[in-house]
């Protein structure tokens, strides 16, 4: 099957029921996407498909229609996405394992809604679990990124 990932076309030979997560991690060596639960409960595997946040552990690669973006495609240390920049400024990460997924969710949220309310942030981001408890900083970083987005847009 053919997949478009981070702007690049990839061909993989896998079973129809292999979740996208494992195609990314084990077949294509894209390791920023994390395995956490396998049942769409933790959000560590969040990627974008045509800009929408999707749990890659719970979608079959063969069902994907659209362009896949992973954390590696969102930005990199030399060219940070505005959400990644906010995550660094607020030093959100502890163990950091969930943060790829948190950042992908936050980026998708801000893409849909550039100025989310506290409640909208809480609801949207509750799909992503953090066991270290970085939630207060996640809230701050999202608000910071949102204000920078609106300043940039103004």
């Amino acid at each position, binding site marked *: 099957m053919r997949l478009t990932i981070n702007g690049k076309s990839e061909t993989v030979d896998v079973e129809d029921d292999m*979740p996208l997560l494992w195609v990314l991690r*084990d077949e294509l060596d894209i390791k920023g996407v994390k395995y956490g639960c396998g049942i769409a*409960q933790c959000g560590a595997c969040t990627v974008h498909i045509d800009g929408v946040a999707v749990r890659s552990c719970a979608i079959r690669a063969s069902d994907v229609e659209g362009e896949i973006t992973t954390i590696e495609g969102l930005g990199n240390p030399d060219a940070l996405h505005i959400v990644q920049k906010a995550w660094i400024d607020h030093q959100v990460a502890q*163990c*950091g394992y969930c943060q790829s997924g948190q950042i992908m969710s936050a980026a998708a949220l801000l893409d849909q809604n550039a100025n989310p309310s506290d409640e909208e942030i809480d609801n949207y981001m509750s799909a992503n679990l953090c*066991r270290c408890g970085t939630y207060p900083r996640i809230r701050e970083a999202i608000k910071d990124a949102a204000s920078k987005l609106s300043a940039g847009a103004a």
Partner: protein
Amino acid sequence: MSKLKTITRRTFLIGSTAIAGGVAFGAYMYKRDPLNPLTANLKEGEAAITPYVKIDASGITLITPRTDLGQGTYSMQAMLIAEELDVELDQIKVDPGMPDPAYYNTALSDEGAPFRPTDDSFAAESTRSFVDAAMKFLGLQITGGSTSVPDSYEKLRQAGAVARETLKAAASQQSGVSIDRLKTEKGMVQLPDGASLSYVELAPIAATIEPIKDIELRSPNQWRLIGKKVLRHDIIAKSTGTLPYGIDFEAEGMVYAAVKINPRQGGAMNSYDATEAEKMRGVQKIIPLKNGIAVIADNTWRAFKAANAVTFDWGQAPYPAEMDAHWQTLSDSFTPDLQDSRTRDDGEIDNVFAEGPPDFEADYRAPYVAHQPLEPLSAIAKITDERADIWTGTQIPGFVRSNVAKATGLTEEQVFVHVLYVGGSFGHRLEDDVVKQAVEIAKSIKGTPIKLTYSREEDFAHDYPRQIAMARAKGKVKNGKVDSFDLSIAMPSVIASQMGRQNFPVPGPDPAILAGAWEQPYAIPNYRTTGYRAPELAPISSWRSVGASSNGFFHDCALDELIHAAGADPLEERIRLMWHEPSRKVLEAVGEMSNWGSDLGENRGRGVAFCLSFGTAVAEVIEVTNTENGIKIDNVYVAAEVGKVIDPINFDNLVKGGVIWGLGHAMNCQITYADGMAQQSNFHDHEGMRLYQCPNIEVRALENGVKVRGIGEPPVPPAAPALANAIFAATGKRIREMPFNKHIDFV
């Protein structure tokens, strides 16, 4: 040259790479020190003879042997060394190094000494030094017990200072300028004429010089890094998905593995049928292991899928199959023959209760809880006839090395444990079953590296949870004051269960049974704590804050009820009873932060709790609202006494994370057993806290204490009782059992 060669040869002690044209400070002095307990109490400066700084042509590497579990300890350790070494944090690499007895953890043993952490008497201190010497002798390199800061605070600054002074001596030799005219900055020795020599170019000369041990540590007002907000060294990588964790590691030619082990922990495998699984795509081999099987495949998911296709006949659990029997065992354990310790017995408790019935009496329960860090357990193993390489995230690299040596028949010197970045632990990686299994699998295909990854379900099924515990409390009040408090706690021994799996017997009472209760610095006239060691039940392990995670809840909820019975104010009475000044100050701080006593309005309540654990005093005030949809936690105010904050951002993050950990599990989580198996299998039924439940949290650090303390665990114990006490204030309902959602709804 001969001396350089000697140093190079001995640098195996700190790493797998020999240093060409470089220097590893102090490594060669190692033999004289940790092996002889009589030299344990070294004179000032001498303790700096430690293998923490390595300089070679590729640059400066700081060895940070305490594993970074997410708590930021690599950054913290690097800051301490860099402070004295005069290097910037962006100039250095950090490396956990290879396990070595030189990296023993002495602070870990302080919890085991029979003196309260608030006791700084000569007897207490000299006993601690004696136990420290024993720890040094055993060479236990463990990350845990909130010890990384107290263990490193002096040692790593001394290591940095010795390296700096030795580099200055090298520069003096090179330039002919006397040492006292040399200065150091940003990885360079500055000469009076404005020229400079880099540490890297000086390293080969420094390697020929006896390390300068006569050093003086800088006073805090000279610090550039310690106590300042710095960018954590891994923060960019962790914000861009570019940091490789253990689970991400790939070795050349690697294959993937999954296991299925009897979900009745420790139960046998009677038989299995892998016929269907063996036919599945990508499956290379299915082999029996102790109590289960392993699948070797060409992809993690295929290995998981095939493991799920194997059918089993599992043996029975070696502990009671149903939960009721676990609680019954605890309830039956409050007997004289099971008494483990009575480490506090002030006043005349027996006489007080002989005079009349208690004013308050209650039982409390704390369930099993799982660790479940977000990164599932994994280990990569490659075994040949000559060596074993293990890549994994672990808190116990020394145990891992000796266990791998035993399992392979290799010597410890032939075993290389590469400690990788860890996606959380909370005590989970104090166990090494995953490594033992990876080694068995790798032995079946020698020469090929295998990566064993646990599925989340396998990880849940084999998580050794937090101890189950029960408490009985009673007390009396007099003239509106707390007069008598008698607390009895029963639990199985965490230390016996955990260290038993390492064949490492720990004699005597288990300090965890009363941790977080016996050492609370309250001057209650009649005050007794008694620990009962329940028979072993399900296997258990250290869970963030260990004994204090249940006992802080028991002690402080019972105290709150007693204060209520006295008709006193919960905060004021605690402050009145508190004899230990630094602890009293944390209570006063949360009073001020929360504006204690002010009117919160209808349906709202405020609760306070305090717990001294791991030597760190923490107080928390929680404000809740009783809404139509359940309890909503609005605000948490936390003050913690740590002596000195090394890394303020990490400190703030760890306190907030500890509060969330404590609250989320107290509200929502338990592990229960049915038919001998844990009934919770993934985050849908054991989720901790999600963002929508997270309160606003305000943190204050206090630095009044004499000693420098850790902060990874101490914010956890007061969280549950502060919430229970706040719920009482808002609703009039006392909750005496975790998880609270069995008794009340949360928003």
